[in-house]
């Protein structure tokens, strides 16, 4: 890649005005630090592809936290280790942007281990630059996940050991076990030859994103002369001699040639057709109507429905609420939830009311619909004196204890079975209750059934069940 002129890339700011202190022309990095070299390679690539204007950098916690001093691009500074997650949110909001993630070894391989793994596994269309200098530079030279065995740091004063800290993590090898990443290469920011390779890798990784070719990552072995406490020129030898044997250079995965190019398209904001898209269009089905109350006492019922799981208990409650709402009542439905679920019974609390509803909980009930024996035993004491108790006499073989409530024994499961399925016993009860109280108009409730029971095949049987339940009450009580 010979050029006519090698000069500061245009993707850098001319002056680093965001930098604190009087010096606005050089970086904040220590002499000989590898970050600057990598910055230059990235910047020249952004220049080359002409994508600076749509580039968004995500900066980590670590020495490169201030990368936004230098790059004249969109910049987002994020929490330690979370850059790949943040980049995911940005890239999906703006798929047509170029999202570059820049992370150090502690950030990426330590605290952010899961974020990078998962972003790589999803194949996010982002480019990650991973600077591995085997140490925590910014915080003053503590051990990194990539610190070498035996290496002394401020938190491994006697050297890193396999027994205590384990061995260094090889990130590109680890990620190459995943299916989604398309290009993973390790480079070394050392001599001229390796710098050239690094430039090619950086270019390739960014080009992959420009072309929409998925997740790419370049790991750069980078000198940290300050952290290593050696001269810059010695640090490059140290990388060759100490790091490269443990972190072998080269592409660990490269399937870019075989990957389909899907460049990101902008995602315009669309707000039309919401009713349909959110399933909140007015229903075309007949709506349930109010009936004529047979007794004043039946007004504003607090209903408890209880039985086995699988008897359609919750659905019966929803059906009451849905019809009540359609008819113009205030309604609420509260399923058994939390500690109430103990004991294997399902129950729900339903309120149908003219006035606004306070508590959706039904403590003392005006109506108990008990579909099995445990439910009867559990909730019978809560029925208000003078209230209604409907029980499924096909399943409940005991007598209720109360003599101050109206008891309607409905062989609901038997009636349902005669119709063709015991599963519609709940609707038999619905018919029975409506017939008894007149709170809803029976015919309209039957016609409105498709609005509250979605399985089309069961509609006729359920409609029949409501009618049969009502008929049973008419004939027997």
């Amino acid at each position, binding site marked *: 890649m010979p050029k006519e002129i090698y000069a500061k890339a245009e993707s850098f700011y001319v002056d680093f005005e965001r930098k*604190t202190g009087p010096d606005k022309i050089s970086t904040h990095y220590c002499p000989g630090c590898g970050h600057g070299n990598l910055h230059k390679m990235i910047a020249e690539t952004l220049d080359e592809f002409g994508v*600076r*204007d*749509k580039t*968004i950098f995500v900066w980590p916690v670590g020495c490169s*936290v201030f990368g*936004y001093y230098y790059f*004249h*691009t*969109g*910049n*987002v*500074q*994020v*929490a330690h280790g*979370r850059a790949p*997650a*943040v980049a*995911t*949110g*940005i890239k*999906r*909001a*703006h798929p*047509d942007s*170029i999202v570059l993630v820049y992370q150090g070894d502690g950030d990426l391989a330590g605290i952010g281990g*899961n*974020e990078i793994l*998962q972003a790589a596994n999803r194949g996010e269309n982002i480019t990650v630059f991973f600077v591995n200098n085997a140490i925590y530079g910014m915080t003053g030279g503590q051990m990194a996940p990539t610190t070498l065995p035996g290496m002394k740091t401020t938190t491994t004063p006697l050297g890193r050991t396999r027994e205590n800290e384990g061995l260094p993590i090889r990130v590109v090898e680890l990620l190459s076990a995943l299916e989604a990443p398309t290009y993973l290469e390790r480079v070394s920011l050392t001599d001229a030859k390796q710098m050239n390779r690094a430039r090619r890798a950086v270019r390739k990784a960014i080009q992959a994103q420009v072309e929409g070719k998925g997740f790419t990552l370049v790991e750069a072995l980078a000198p940290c002369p300050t952290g290593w406490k050696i001269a810059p020129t010695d640090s490059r030898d140290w990388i060759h001699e100490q790091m490269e044997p443990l972190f072998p250079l080269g592409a660990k995965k490269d399937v870019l040639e075989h990957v389909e190019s899907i460049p990101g398209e902008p*995602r*315009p*904001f*669309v*707000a039309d057709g*919401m*009713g349909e*898209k*959110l*399933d*909140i*269009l*007015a229903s075309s089905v007949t709506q349930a109507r109010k009936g004529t109350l047979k007794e004043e006492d039946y007004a504003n019922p607090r209903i408890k429905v209880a039985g086995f799981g699988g008897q359609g208990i919750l659905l019966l409650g*929803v059906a009451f*609420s849905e019809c009540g*709402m359609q008819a113009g009542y205030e*309604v*609420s*439905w*509260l*399923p058994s*939830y*939390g*500690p109430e679920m103990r004991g294997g019974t399902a129950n729900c609390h339903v309120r149908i009311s003219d006035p606004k*509803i*306070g*508590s*959706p*909980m039904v*403590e*003392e009930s005006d109506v108990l619909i008990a579909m099995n024996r445990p439910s009867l035993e559990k909730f019978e004491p809560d029925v208000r004196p003078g209230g209604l108790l409907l029980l499924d006499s096909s399943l409940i073989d005991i007598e209720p204890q109360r003599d101050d409530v109206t008891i309607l024994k409905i062989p609901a499961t038997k009636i349902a079975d005669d119709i063709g399925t015991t599963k519609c016993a709940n609707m038999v009860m619905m018919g029975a209750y409506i017939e008894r109280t007149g709170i809803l108009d029976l015919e309209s409730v039957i016609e409105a059934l498709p609005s509250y029971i979605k399985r089309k095949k069961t509609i006729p049987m359920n409609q029949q069940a409501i009618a049969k339940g009502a008929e049973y009450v008419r004939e027997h009580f």
Partner: protein
Amino acid sequence: MAKQLLKGNDAVVKGAILAGCRAYYGYPITPASEIAEAAALYFPRVGGTFLQAESEIGAINMVYGASSAGIRSMTASSSPGISLKMEGVSYLVGAELPCVIVDIVRGGPGLGNIAPEQGDYFQIVKGGGHGNYRVPVLAPNSVQEMCDLTMLGFEIADRYRTPVFIMADGFTGQMMEPCEFPEPREDVPDKPWAVGPDASRIDNLVSSIYLDPDDLEGHVEKLRKKAEEIETNETRFEEYRLDDAEHVVIGYGIVSRILKSAVDMAREQGIKVGLLRPISLFPFPKAPIRKLAERVRDFLVVELSTGQMVEDVRLTLEGARPVRFYGRTGGNVPKDSELFEQIRKLQEEKIHA
């Protein structure tokens, strides 16, 4: 739009989309999972993003990214998950990024249980993350409000560039009630500060770093002033039968619904009691409480906790009136008769006094 019977958790999602939210990042947890499930269904239908993140930490940071990019975004979870999100919340506040976070509070501490509680009041209202900050917290008590306050949350979030919490409980999330949906927002506010894919945005920086102590103090002061402005403009509460009240009960969320029933029962017995229900927990409705203190005998605070909001009531009253507290925990929700009994005790104390 039609009136629809649906769960509070579903209403949150539909409300969010109508408010122009186009990104949902979350992680499943009972009893908030229905929000993620509904989001998974509806967000893609409107050209939005739904992603089940690797963790709560991943989710809140994806929201950070989406918000940085200028789109309306949200996440939802339940208490233990909210604990995990708190790092992200602090960063969102620091970087002044708007978003909506829903907490369907469950029992704690630790794994606790999945039943309704209000033990997250301190965590959400008082901070939770590091640093000096306050975030608006809205506490719905009905399915309609799960929709409405979520929508309002997005407006407040953008108006002040802040995360907004919706603090609800398992009951409000799980129960079904009718909800009337408003018309959708046709567009969302432009955010000139956001990062984006064109040259007009390349000088934008989203960050929470202020290295210089004076700079950071200036930033913190800006956030404090913002919180003050929010206190002035966004305090919300509901009053119920307070006109001639001698006793005031205070409760929020599902508790306020039960308190309403209990107040009605007490009124039938001739006890002059009314309800004050904070809708915004931050800002806390201090003014109406102080005003009531001028003419009522005492206050009763009811919470699904060992007493968290009650501290704000006491701070507000500064000892001006007695404050009684009644709390249930562990997922136990008091019955209306139980709360009526507590109100009756207030009345008895008055007679004995």
